[in-house]
């Protein structure tokens, strides 16, 4: 009974700043939905509107059966974990955990029982009498989670809860979170700018940019079949290689590579191939391919990333970290590509590497709209 639905939700701030535009999205009961996108894309605003911390300019948000546009946060049966934890500094951990329950006049025994349960679940028993100021970052994060869990709400809202943790702790907490959510089965909406986090944690991910929903779907689907150039570039690390090609009567040419694609419109098209989609081939290879002038080689232990240039026009598509816009640079004659190789292969910088796209690895995008061009 605790699905969350956005119906054409818009949020405009004074000064005509549009944070969210026409968002329609649904998190099913018990689902772990992740809102992901660069800073300023509207994901946090969308989350805060579900919490009731921001008013909705247009559209409706439904929790369960109820439209909650005019329902204050305390009546919505939600719990939230803030990015900076927002723990009450003057209260002990125990009091922090109990606060929400006491405010709702829960009986003392119930409060004690639930606080005990949650502190055991999160390993907080030793910390109950300490104050937030005496805790480490990781401990504070767990208390923030505990405060949300103890309320047993219909919906969990998490606003980049792991971003203030150091890398190792972050990875650890990620799997703990996933396990916890699976066990409790509570509808969860999670916001992050880290697309790796999004793909590993979510049952479904929703990619936003500039307040507009770009694509929603299972992580693997979004990865494999991005709906537009933005999603293609944002999801996946290192990003998808994008080169500019020309199509004529269903035949696409990009650099030395040529292939057939029935739906390609005549004119410029964008050709996308993920780094793992480029396979090294021998000298005598007969099919389509690229000659990569190797510039940088990054050995990562379990794989090697090779960055180099190819004889093809760069699509000039970049996602600027600050603006979720795709900026087109001036065309250059040589495009850059990244190739993912198994750890044994270690080409030298300055050498030539011949690669060819794996079957089914090519994605085509319209050069003007950025939309994916798909076989009918």
């Amino acid at each position, binding site marked *: 009974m605790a699905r969350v639905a956005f119906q054409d939700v818009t949020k405009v701030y004074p000064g005509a700043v549009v944070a969210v535009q026409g968002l329609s999205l649904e998190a099913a009961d018990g689902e772990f939905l992740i809102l992901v996108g660069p800073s300023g894309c509207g994901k946090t605003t969308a989350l805060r509107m579900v919490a009731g911390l921001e008013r909705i300019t247009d559209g409706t948000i439904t929790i369960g059966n109820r439209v909650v546009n005019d329902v204050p946060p*305390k009546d919505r049966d939600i719990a939230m974990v*803030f990015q900076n934890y*927002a723990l009450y500094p*003057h209260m002990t951990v125990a009091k922090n955990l109990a*606060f929400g329950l006491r*405010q709702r006049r829960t009986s003392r025994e119930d409060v004690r029982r639930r606080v005990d349960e949650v502190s055991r679940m999160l390993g907080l028993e030793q910390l109950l009498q300490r*104050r937030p100021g005496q805790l480490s970052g990781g401990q504070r994060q767990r208390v923030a989670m505990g405060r949300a869990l103890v309320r047993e709400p219909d919906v969990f809202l998490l606003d980049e809860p792991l971003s203030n943790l150091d890398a190792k702790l972050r990875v650890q907490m990620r799997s703990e979170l996933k396990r916890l959510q699976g066990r409790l089965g509570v509808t969860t909406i999670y916001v992050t700018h880290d697309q790796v986090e999004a793909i590993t944690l979510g049952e479904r991910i929703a990619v936003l940019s500039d307040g507009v929903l770009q694509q929603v779907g299972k992580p693997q689907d979004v990865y494999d079949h991005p709906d537009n150039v933005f999603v293609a570039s944002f999801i996946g690390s290192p990003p998808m290689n994008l080169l500019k090609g020309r199509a004529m009567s269903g035949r696409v040419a990009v650099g030395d590579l040529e292939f057939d694609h029935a739906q390609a419109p005549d004119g410029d098209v964008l050709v996308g191939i993920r780094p793992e989609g480029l396979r090294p081939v021998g000298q005598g290879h007969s099919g389509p391919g690229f000659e990569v002038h190797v510039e940088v080689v990054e050995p990562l232990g379990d794989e090697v990333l090779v960055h180099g240039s190819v004889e093809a026009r760069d699509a000039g598509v970049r996602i600027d970290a600050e603006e979720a816009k795709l900026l087109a640079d001036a065309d250059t004659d040589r495009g850059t590509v990244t190739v993912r190789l198994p750890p044994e292969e270690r080409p030298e910088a300055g050498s030539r590497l011949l690669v060819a796209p794996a079957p089914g690895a090519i994605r085509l995008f319209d050069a003007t709209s950025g939309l994916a061009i798909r076989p009918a």
Partner: protein
Amino acid sequence: MTRFRRFLVSDHLAGWTFILPSVVLIGLFGLVPIVWGLILSFQKAGLISPEREWVGFENYARIMSDPKARQAAVNTIYYTALFVPVSILLALFVAHALDRKIALIRFYRLAVFIPVVTSTIATGIMFLWLFDKNFGLANWLLDKIGFGPFGFFEDPDQAMIALVIMTVWGWLGFDTIIYLAALQGVPQELIEAAAIDGASRWSSFWRITWPMLGPATLLLVVWSTISALQLFDEVFFVTKGGPLGRTSVVVFYVYRLAFEQGLGGLSLAGYAAAIAYVLFLVILVLTLAQFWLGRRVIHYQS
């Protein structure tokens, strides 16, 4: 480089050169008086005359048996006990009222702050006029809502209260600024977390915001107590310690002894100094007690 040259260009010389004017001035007009004041308190001393007779603790003992000193102490405590809680609680409420974005808020804030810059004399004149028994606006307005004419500064029972009203008016802006800054320092996220946790506005204010105002409250309590105990200008100018000595506070009494009577030739400077030192001790003890109590009750954010 010789040692002397090294010294000349050293930090030590530079440091001392920079602080020398300040050290000399503060030494002469700050430190010396502190010590001299103590010495005076053990003497029978004249302000104009050079008389300096050592009398040990006689001045201090005299305080105990001096009815005027006792009256000054009582009046001072009475004033402080009224002024401190009233000004602080009022400031809390006003700061809360001013901590919002509504139309005219900048005007309201200005109106609250302006009285802080008026001098004690200017304020005294304004209130002498407002509270004038015969022609004052206050009595006219009060009469309109059915309250009889008040004597204010001229009534022995009302004078101190009138002084409290006047000084609260003058200081409210100061306290409000401190509280307003503290309120704006409470992270918005905490209020949001409390709202999500189910706290009503009342509950959120008293259980989340108010505790976080602890340091500001302690500061205001200490500051207000210290200034209240040192009240002088208003008493001297407006009520002259009257009527019937009901507003004679400690610093006023000290002034009277040392400067009014002292200038008339009486050698009371030592006695006055002793009273001043006793007040100092009281302030010191009270401040330390307030801080100690404060630290036990307040939990500072890390």
